[in-house]
């Protein structure tokens, strides 16, 4: 079965989704990512979906659940590069991906992640009280 490669860059795991997501691929990604976070102690996960043209409620739910699992393992999730059509579809489906941070592209996503990690380092583990 195909797997989506996960790259590690500093303390951040990068996933770019460049194929059509089907359900089993999505579930495999969630498993791999969880294992990888646990193994590497990554602090952030950046999922790049600019090549993703079609989403359904399952893929949307998968993104939310990856974010939730990552948070449990103390890693922040950023979704980057969502296409307008995908954003509209998700909103129409009622999936607003609450709890996931978003960025326009990978560059912004990395900047966001780094700013966040730097802030956490400065303030120790008190992360929740520091929104903006």
């Amino acid at each position, binding site marked *: 079965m195909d797997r989506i490669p996960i790259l590690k860059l500093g303390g951040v795991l990068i996933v770019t989704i460049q194929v059509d997501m089907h359900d089993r691929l999505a579930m495999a990604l969630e498993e791999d990512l969880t294992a990888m976070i646990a193994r590497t102690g990554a602090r952030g996960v950046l999922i790049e979906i600019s090549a993703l043209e079609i989403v359904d409620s399952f893929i949307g739910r998968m993104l939310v659940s990856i974010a939730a699992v990552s948070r449990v393992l103390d890693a922040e999730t950023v*979704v*980057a590069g*969502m*296409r*307008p059509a*995908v*954003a*509209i579809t*998700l*909103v*129409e489906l009622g999936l*607003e*991906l609450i709890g996931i941070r*978003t*960025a*326009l*592209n990978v560059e*912004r*996503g990395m900047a966001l992640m780094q700013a966040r990690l730097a802030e956490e380092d400065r303030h120790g583990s008190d992360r929740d009280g520091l929104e903006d």
Partner: protein
Amino acid sequence: MSMDGAGVLERTLTEDEAAILDAWNVALREGTSLRSGRIREAELQTQAKTVFGQLRDALASGGLDADSESFAPLRETLADISRSRAIQGFTPTDTANFVFSLKEPIFAALARTSDTDASAQVAGVWAAGKVLDRLGLQTMEVFLASREEVIGRQGQEIAELSTPVVRLWDGILALPLIGTLDSARTGIVMENLLQAIVDEEAEIAIIDITGVPTVDTLVAQHLLKTVAAARLMGADCIVSGIRPQIAQTMVHLGVELNVVSKATLADAFGVALRRTGRKVVRQQAATEERR
């Protein structure tokens, strides 16, 4: 019975053509169509003559069924006439009366030609009424369809005109909304905004609703959808231009916009500048010169 009526009617129309046409032209002249100055009398008479001729031909070949094949040329002529009436801005009454004003001259002619035969006269009147009513209704249908087409086209043009996305600064977009938000317009607005966010690599989008006359729960829902979609793309939204009355109505209705909102576009722009790490400073030299 009905064949009888059609026969009587057709005979009357053929025998008494000149008198009926004259009377019809008088009726048309006295009607309101000419008074508006949108159509000339000669044109009206030409139309009347064409319609009359086609009506007679249709009756001769196809009886009384105004939906049948033999009435097709007449229906087409009437459709053209009522379409142009709709575009020229005639009232529905004017348009319908073009057909209905033919009734009286025909009834009068029937009375003249068959005054000795009461049953033929009744049959003729019934036939004329049936055909003309049907034709009048068809005229109205085309009239309404044309009007709706015009309205639809205007609506589309307004929708295209009124959803501009303006670039205020690097990475800051403004979307001044004007007019009522319905789901169709929200769709267009959302698409335009999201595409602009991608094109301009915007971080912040300001949705200004100064031009939105009312905000009810539905409009608020549409706004929230747009905000949510922009957030998914990685851009923050600020809603501005909420007028005092609208703010009160929204609170009374229990509508909640869970987004950053500001009273004016200027305030929102200030917030956007601050968030992107910018600041507007008054030039010291300029102020001193003025003093």
